[in-house]
């Protein structure tokens, strides 16, 4: 026999007592491990969704523009392709709006894929059976539209345009195309119907359209804007796949694939470097100049612009091209150095104007302003010289191809995207056009031209490279090669996205649900552990004589304690094993809840139960360690008890653990400190929210200490008649073991405090709706469009252009238009970690208006402190872009703090650093980062127009305005919703989290109430002789029942009352400040449930007491 035999024997002998301990540990472990299992499950489910939605796509090559479909084949034929990739498919990816013709139902923001059999082959699938005009909707899209196979779908997508709509020559009207399609059989997720390159847990609304049909409709034959690559398994989820794809693209892409042309002009005496976009961006221009130097040529920069009028001497010539040049060309034309106001006319124009050197020449020209309107401006020059139409002065290639202008056979056929007055066109003008087409009639110095017509997208229309005298025929080829070498496809036109690696990284999630559920379950775990410790303590108290004996026969107190802890550890292990098994059930129950009534927190029902061995081990180990810790703590008091006292059956805690004067001093001190905090807060000495919460906590601690002291010192005689004196006896019973009673009160009060205070943070989207400083900024509607809006709806021309003129519903409506760089949702609605968050460009007027409220900022000046939006206008010295973000998104989704940076990738441009400078108070902008429009245009020059609107509408007319906007702007795929609806979606997530916390906290509270029942029962059993005596002197069973129930009611009332009162103090300013509501109804229900459970367990205790042989107990006395 060894000492361990004693432990084994004890474990077996006291199994009934131990069972309660095991159940307590099992509950704690089940809750702990279940929380971790939920975390595992969410992560695994997100990874599963990634795998399902990406199919075999590991890398995506996205372009800012359409490129040759053949590039795909050429990439595939590169020798290095097979080393890293198994397949490749070209496709078109667009955003679109789909309308179900029969029902009129509409879905905006639909992912539109133009695919052919290569797409399906890449994914190892046979192409679904579909006709040439059949479109296959994803099952969620079909369900949303109510579309069945054979129904007609109208797809609206943006017509890709080479010339940016942000410039004068870009098309702003008719920028969309509509396809009439027949709906095919909806594609299930398992059949790749929810294919998506960007991870999202919500259902994917996608439409698969035949590639050829889409190309034909968009007038982009044999062109695509994306490639998908299936990487070899070894590299599919690594950056290596991206590097390999970038390498292949660099090898295969031609100048044309980069949208750059180097064409021979001027009879082969020069090469003109141009872009299809008409404007040559600075990077390409710089590359063209560098390449020219490489091949020994002297490059010439040209900017050609359209003048509405060239006027001099009271005469005018309409609609003429003017070229701005410098260097040798200017010298050749003007015969001198560039002067700021100098202009050179060709002899035709000079003749028409009767102009001579020294005459004033005025140019009138249009500018398209960023705010969405056109403006005619004037500039006056001094005629430097008149040149004959020969050489450069006769070169019609100085003018790039402007759709609607340069291709016209006559001036009268012009169809530019700006207003022209064809009545001004005279016969000589037509004759000039007929003979010289777009040959410039005037020349100005380049610096002056760029000052007038330079654009953020480019300040040149071409770089001309004169063929050096004596150059061989291969010069043009050499130059093109040099230019291509200067241009990196990845830096100028393409982005390589390692979609699988990125998505898997993102699936680690913004929200660790395991961690959240650990927080949410804290009270449940605490209650379970408390019960564990309580039951263990009860067990040990039964065995005090045994402990005394062991001490008497020579065991040291430490060794006795060690033995008991060993017993506790063995019980904890058994409990942990049972709890680990129960964790599956608990985790499954939580996931079921998250798929059903807590679905707002996760936004998907695609959750499956997964538990990693690590989580199971961690949960079990944590449960064991905590339980053993609790057991060790409960045994601490035994050391102080003498062996003799133990042998006499004393627990010894009566003398050592009772409240002392220090307890009373603590209670009074705590109450005073709470009072001081409240006074300081009322007088604005310290922030109210923190002060009140601190005061609430202090009051809670003080009240519990005070009640402990009060319970221990209760005295007095019973008063009244009937049940009252009996109930009084019950109240006195609470003083029997004041420590136990105070512990129960503390547990119930603390849980109630947390549940009530958390409940008050529920948000209601309707509160503060009209307040400019409120969560909606005072805006009634928020709208997003598929196609960008270019025109200013506050002008008559803008209303006309947008088809909003004459719409009565829009009276009194004002718009705030934001530019939009689409990206990942940075709000709590997205469970994936955002890699490239959506960015908004806010107009200056919006920033100045100072709407919304900020939680914190990096404001350095008084003006910035008063209006932190102004921080977004800062020019940061290191080139980062200042952005504001929602405080919650910042902390819980992006996991950043002020001063940190978010780096986003941009096709064709280097990564962009966004510096977080301000945190908005929880509101409308949870999904986006916001910067100033100016910074936005610098960061995302390719983004055209406005796609995000905040709308002010007269109160009560929100729905009418939303309907009118959606109807009138249907071609833009506009979707308008009340701001309260958007806020409600966010608040539902927050409120659901609070519900989870309250539900699990409530369970903890109920478990704590069961503990209260156990304490009552234990007290009654310990005092069974006393109760037997009462029976002997004439008390009836119902009297004993009243006593026990009264004791229970007193402790419950103390706990609930203290918790609620202190919580109300704690949350008072937060409720006022944050606009939360106090959910009195649901909390009352919860507290009633606690009272009911409390009474139930009391009844159970009473039943057990009545079953005990009380009179036998009396006889034993």
């Amino acid at each position, binding site marked *: 026999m060894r*000492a361990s035999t004693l432990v084994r024997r004890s474990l077996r002998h006291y199994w009934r007592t131990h069972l309660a301990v095991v159940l307590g540990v099992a509950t704690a472990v089940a809750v702990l491990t279940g929380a971790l299992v939920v975390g595992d499950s969410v992560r695994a489910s997100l990874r599963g969704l990634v795998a399902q939605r990406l199919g075999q796509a590991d890398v995506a090559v996205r372009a800012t523009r359409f490129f040759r479909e053949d590039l795909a084949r050429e990439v595939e034929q590169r020798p290095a392709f097979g080393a890293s990739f198994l397949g490749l498919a070209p496709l078109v990816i667009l955003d679109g709006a789909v309308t179900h013709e029969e029902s009129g139902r509409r879905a905006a923001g639909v992912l539109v894929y133009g695919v052919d059999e290569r797409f399906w082959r890449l994914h190892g699938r046979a192409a679904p059976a579909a006709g040439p005009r059949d479109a296959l909707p994803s099952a969620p899209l079909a369900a949303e539209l109510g579309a069945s196979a054979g129904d007609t779908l109208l797809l609206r997508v943006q017509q890709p345009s080479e010339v940016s709509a942000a410039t004068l020559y870009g098309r702003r009207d008719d920028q969309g195309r509509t396809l009439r399609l027949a709906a095919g059989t909806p594609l299930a997720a398992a059949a790749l119907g929810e294919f998506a390159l960007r991870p999202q847990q919500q259902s994917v609304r996608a439409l698969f359209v035949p590639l050829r049909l889409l190309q034909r409709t968009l007038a982009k034959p044999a062109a695509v804007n994306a490639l998908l690559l299936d990487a070899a398994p070894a590299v599919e989820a690594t950056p290596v796949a991206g590097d390999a794809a970038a390498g292949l693209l660099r090898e295969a892409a031609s100048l044309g694939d980069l949208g750059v042309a180097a064409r021979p002009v001027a009879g082969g005496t020069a090469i003109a470097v141009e872009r299809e976009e008409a404007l040559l961006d600075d990077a390409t221009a710089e590359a063209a100049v560098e390449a020219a130097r490489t091949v020994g040529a002297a490059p010439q920069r040209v900017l050609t612009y359209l003048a509405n009028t060239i006027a001099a001497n009271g005469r005018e010539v309409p609609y003429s091209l003017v070229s701005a040049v410098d260097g040798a060309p200017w010298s050749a034309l003007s015969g001198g150095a560039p002067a700021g106001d100098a202009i050179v006319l060709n002899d035709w124009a000079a003749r028409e104007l009767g102009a001579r050197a020294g005459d004033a020449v005025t140019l009138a020209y249009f500018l398209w302003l960023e705010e969405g309107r056109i403006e005619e401006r004037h500039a006056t020059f001094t005629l430097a010289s008149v040149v004959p139409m020969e050489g450069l002065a006769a070169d019609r290639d100085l003018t790039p191809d402007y759709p609607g202008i340069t291709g016209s056979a006559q001036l009268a056929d012009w169809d530019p995207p700006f207003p022209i007055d064809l009545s001004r066109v005279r016969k000589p003008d037509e004759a000039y056009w007929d003979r010289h087409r777009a040959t410039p009639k005037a020349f100005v110095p380049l610096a002056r031209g760029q000052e007038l017509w330079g654009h953020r997208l480019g300040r040149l229309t071409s770089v001309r490279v004169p063929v050096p005298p004596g150059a061989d025929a291969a010069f043009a080829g050499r130059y093109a090669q040099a230019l291509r070498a200067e241009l990196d496809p990845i830096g100028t036109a393409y982005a390589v996205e390692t979609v699988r690696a990125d998505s898997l990284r993102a699936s680690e999630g913004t929200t660790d649900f395991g961690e959240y559920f650990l927080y949410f379950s804290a009270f449940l775990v605490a209650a379970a552990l408390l019960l564990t410790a309580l039951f263990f303590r009860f067990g040990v108290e039964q065995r005090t004589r045994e402990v005394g*004996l062991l*001490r*008497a*026969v020579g065991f040291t107190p430490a060794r006795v304690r060690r033995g008991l802890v060993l017993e506790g550890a063995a019980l904890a292990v058994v409990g942990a094993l049972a709890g680990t098994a129960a964790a599956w059930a608990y985790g499954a129950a939580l996931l079921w809840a998250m798929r059903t009534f807590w679905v707002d927190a996760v936004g998907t029902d695609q959750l499956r139960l997964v538990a990693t061995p690590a989580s199971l081990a961690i949960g079990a180990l944590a449960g064991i360690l905590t339980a053993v810790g609790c057991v060790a703590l409960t045994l601490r008091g035994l050391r102080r008890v*003498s062996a003799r006292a133990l042998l006499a059956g004393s627990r010894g805690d009566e003398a050592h653990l009772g409240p002392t004067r220090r307890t009373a001093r603590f209670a009074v001190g705590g109450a005073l400190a709470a009072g001081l905090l409240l006074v300081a807060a009322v007088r604005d000495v310290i922030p109210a929210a923190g002060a009140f919460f601190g005061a609430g906590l202090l009051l809670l601690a003080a009240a519990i200490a005070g009640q402990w002291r009060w319970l221990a010192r209760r005295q007095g005689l019973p008063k009244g008649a009937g049940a009252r004196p009996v109930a009084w006896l019950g109240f006195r019973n609470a003083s029997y073991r004041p420590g136990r009673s105070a512990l129960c009160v503390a547990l119930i009060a603390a849980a109630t405090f947390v549940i009530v205070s958390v409940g008050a943070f529920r948000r209601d989207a309707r509160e503060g709706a009209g307040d400019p400083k409120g969560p909606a900024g005072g805006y009634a509607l928020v709208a997003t469009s598929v196609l960008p809006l270019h025109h200013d709806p506050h002008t008559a021309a803008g209303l006309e252009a947008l088809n909003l003129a004459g719409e009565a519903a829009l009276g009194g409506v004002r718009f705030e238009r934001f530019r939009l760089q689409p990206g990942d949702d940075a709000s709590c609605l997205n469970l994936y970690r955002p890699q490239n968050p959506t960015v908004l460009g806010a107009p200056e007027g919006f920033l100045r208006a100072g709407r919304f409220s900020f939680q914190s900022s990096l404001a350095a000046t008084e003006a910035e402190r008063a209006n932190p939006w102004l921080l977004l206008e800062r020019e940061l010295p290191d080139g980062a872009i200042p952005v504001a973000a929602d405080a919650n998104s910042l902390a819980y989704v992006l996991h950043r703090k002020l001063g940190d940076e978010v780096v986003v990738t941009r096709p064709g441009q280097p990564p962009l650093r966004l510096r977080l400078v301000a945190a908005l108070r929880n509101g409308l902008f949870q999904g986006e980062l916001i910067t100033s429009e100016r910074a936005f245009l610098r960061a995302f020059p390719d983004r055209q127009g406005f796609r995000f609107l905040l709308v002010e509408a007269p109160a009560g007319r929100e729905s009418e305005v939303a309907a009118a906007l959606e109807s009138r702007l249907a071609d833009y795929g506009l979707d308008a919703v009340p701001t309260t609806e958007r806020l409600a979606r966010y608040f539902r997530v927050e409120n659901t989290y609070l519900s989870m916390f309250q539900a699990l906290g409530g369970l903890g509270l109920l478990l704590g109430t069961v503990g209260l029942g156990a304490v009552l029962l234990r007290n009654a059993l310990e005092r069974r002789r006393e109760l037997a005596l009462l029976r002997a002197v004439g008390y009836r069973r119902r009297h004993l029942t009243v006593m026990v129930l009264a004791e229970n009611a007193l402790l419950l009332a103390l706990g609930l009352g203290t918790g609620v009162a202190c919580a109300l103090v704690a949350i008072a300013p937060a409720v006022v400040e944050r606009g939360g509501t106090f959910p009195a109804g649901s909390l009352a229900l919860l507290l009633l449930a606690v009272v009911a459970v409390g009474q139930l367990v009391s009844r159970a205790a009473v039943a057990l007491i009545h079953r005990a042989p009380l009179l036998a107990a009396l006889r034993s006395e």
Partner: protein
Amino acid sequence: MRVTDLRKEYPTAAGPLPILGGVSFELRRGQAVAVMGPSGSGKSTLLYILGTLEPPTSGQVTLDGVDPFALGEAELAAFRNRQVGFVFQDHCLLPQCTVLENVLTPALVTGDASPHVDRARKLLDQVGLAARADHRPAQLSGGERQRVAIARALVLQPVLLLCDEPTGNLDRHTADTVASLLLDLHRDQGTILVVVTHSAELAARLPVRWQLAEGRLQGT
């Protein structure tokens, strides 16, 4: 065992409550003494101080020249284990262990009780319970339980055997049997036997009887 001017007081709200007021005596191996006195006279206090379960307020106890109260906690426990055997009125058997295991309980302090199994069996034989070695305390009568407690007290051959009302819970016949057994074993083992009892019958069977009154010992 030498006891010199042993005093014990308990602190109370009204001031120190004296229990023992200068007890001195000396006992040699093989001697046995009964300590009698009214309730509250300090009999049990004296016994527990002798058994080192409670420290005196002042005075000294030495056993074989060792003052146990000068030892540290671990040494004191070891001293008690090797030198002192207890028999309580409420036998204090471990309900979860068999009779044999209960007898071996003091031997568990060394970690392994195996070397003491033969002696435990012999003692059980001596107290007439050899056949009940594998029974649980719940299966024994009150007298049998007390006999197990006596065997347990002697398993490590202590110098000092302390008995607190060893027959207090037993009927007269059983009490007589247990007393005979106790005295027989005391003689066999040569222990110092101190018995605290209210029972005049039991006290009469011991060669020396002391009366404890007002905190002092008086010989009878």
